[in-house]
């Protein structure tokens, strides 16, 4: 069994307790609410049947109206999750939360991917140049990294909207696509689907709508990458094997490839860690650009006090993040042979 296989198995085993812990954390938080959540939803004057109904829906009481003790609530919660039941919406007629999440997920994935792409291109390029050239360029990149990290996404988004949508009027102010131009559903990613089905007009519309949001998201996250790329390249360039390679007469253009490959590991590590930032960034970006994804969805449900949906969504996020971290970890073990156990 290769060292890589061993690593994958060990890592998979680690994921289970991690997810368990996160999921329990969410349960704990949602139970921390002071006061009666049901009253918060329907008000003091609601009829008792309605209150009972809601209590059942929240998993607080059983069929006959008797309160369910906390440990059993916890057990039910875990059992449901295991079966893929993330709860049901309190508002939209008991729609399963999972279904609603799935409807809104592709939009977020598309935005996240676009933003991620922008951030990598922007960040890694700037960081590499800064690390390679040093001096003033390096300082400039340092400042860039610091500022972009501290950008407040909604504000940057709004400034871009102001410039391009309101004053210059060249790009749409929000939304995902012009109504009526949605491409046939294959993956749920408009850009991809429109290419696959050859709908040029859909593609252009989707592209125009995604430019500003992905630029906003990408800009903010690029700061992290530019910093990591810069320090990583700088450090690698000081390493012995670079001097040794030069001493062998290896030309600069070949060296760049080797340096980048070595520098890429910390960059990839960062990429994995940025998942959290990407998600929270996506949420803020979506609400600013009325992008119909998970962020807007979550925000909406919070406003409507749809607690079960909020809980289910947060849990979903937690699980997704753990899974993606797992994939990323395995990927680096593949690239860097030194990491495997």
């Amino acid at each position, binding site marked *: 069994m290769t060292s890589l296989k061993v690593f994958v198995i060990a890592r998979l085993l680690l994921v289970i307790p991690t997810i368990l812990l996160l999921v329990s954390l969410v349960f704990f938080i949602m139970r921390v609410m002071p006061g009666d959540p049901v009253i918060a939803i329907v008000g003091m004057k609601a009829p008792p049947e309605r209150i009972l109904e809601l209590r059942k829906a929240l998993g607080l009481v059983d069929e006959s109206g008797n309160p369910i003790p906390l440990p059993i609530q916890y057990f039910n919660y875990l059992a449901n999750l295991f079966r893929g039941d993330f709860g049901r919406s309190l508002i939209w007629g008991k729609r399963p939360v999972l279904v609603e999440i799935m409807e809104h997920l592709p939009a977020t994935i598309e935005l996240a991917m676009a933003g991620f792409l922008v951030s990598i291109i922007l960040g890694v390029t700037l960081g590499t140049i800064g690390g390679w050239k040093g001096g003033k360029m390096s300082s400039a990149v340092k400042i860039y990294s610091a500022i972009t990290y501290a950008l407040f996404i909604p504000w940057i988004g709004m400034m871009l909207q102001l410039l391009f949508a309101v004053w210059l009027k060249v790009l749409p102010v929000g939304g995902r696509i012009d109504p009526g131009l949605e491409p046939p559903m294959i993956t749920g990613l408009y850009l991809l689907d429109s290419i696959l089905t050859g709908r040029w007009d859909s593609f252009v519309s989707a592209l125009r709508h995604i430019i500003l949001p992905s630029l906003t998201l990408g800009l903010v996250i690029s700061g992290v990458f530019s910093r990591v790329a810069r320090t990583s390249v700088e450090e690698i360039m000081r390493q012995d*094997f670079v001097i040794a390679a030069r001493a*062998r*007469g290896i030309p600069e253009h*070949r060296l760049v490839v080797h340096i980048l490959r*070595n520098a890429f590991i910390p960059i990839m590590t960062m990429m994995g860690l940025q998942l959290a930032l990407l998600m929270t960034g996506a949420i803020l970006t979506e609400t600013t650009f009325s992008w119909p994804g998970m962020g807007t969805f979550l925000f909406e449900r919070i406003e409507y006090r749809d607690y079960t949906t909020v809980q289910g969504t947060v849990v979903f996020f937690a699980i997704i993040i753990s899974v993606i971290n797992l994939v990323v970890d395995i990927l680096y073990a593949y690239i860097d042979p030194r990491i495997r156990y």
Partner: protein
Amino acid sequence: MEEILSIRNLKTYYFTRDGVVRAVDNVSLSINRGELLGLVGESGSGKSSLGLSIVRLIPPPGRIVDGEITFRGMNLLKLPEKELRNIRGKHIGMIFQDPLTSLDPLRKIGDQLVETIIVHTRVNEEEAKEIALRALERVGIAPDRFDDYPHQLSGGMRQRVMIAMATMLNPDLLIADEPTTALDVIVQSRIMDLLSDLKKSMKMAILLITHDLALVIERSDRVAVMYAGELCEVGPSEVISQEPLHPYTQLLLESIPDIEKPRTKLVYIPGNPPDMRNPPTGCRFWPRCPKVMDVCKRISPRSLELDDRFVRCHLYNGGLECGR
């Protein structure tokens, strides 16, 4: 004896935030074809900087400020970068102290060898692989190691790989910067044997940079002793070991523990190497010199060349400066 490398008045300085470090200060040295010249000095003596200067790989904030390095009739310091790269690896090879960090950790050693060959010659990949395998064989590494990563090899083996890489294109000169310092004594001996073999079979000159005088006396043809950026003494190793002229060389020799002599206290050289941003005036060794004279503190000693020996010390200047 044919001279293949001639260093004249080399000055390499590091311009740091806290001052200028004169790592190599007006050093002249030459290396003959097929000889092993041992360059000895403490840490900070500038010996590594000298080695790096030859191939112009001094890292910033360092710079070669002045001097001439002649190799095969060309001044290396004035050569355009492209031609210099041609020389590096092909005509002048270099190996470093820590073979683990000198190899790209993410690539198989075979690939790294092949790349070096392809960069310097016109052979295709298959032929390059052949050459690489033969080079590995020559240093005693089995062909099934070709696809290994550096961290899968032992320290001694990694150093052999480095030697293979540096010598496989038959360079005229091999610069070896502390090649055995990171290895244990037995491996050290084997590596040195390997180097001697290669030197003989390829008529390759070796500049062995080290702090270990015993090693140098044992293995090299000539010895050069360096202190605080300046050369103190140069000469054939037998002669120097029997009749060292410079006080520093004498102290170094005395401090080598000898298994055959009766057990006495360990001799060492008192004091510390100077702060290179602010070295002492006059002869830089005077604060630690047992034979120091007044003139040593004020005036830098002139060099004296005699046959195949060279020494810089006021003891041998005929006392001209102090008017005695």
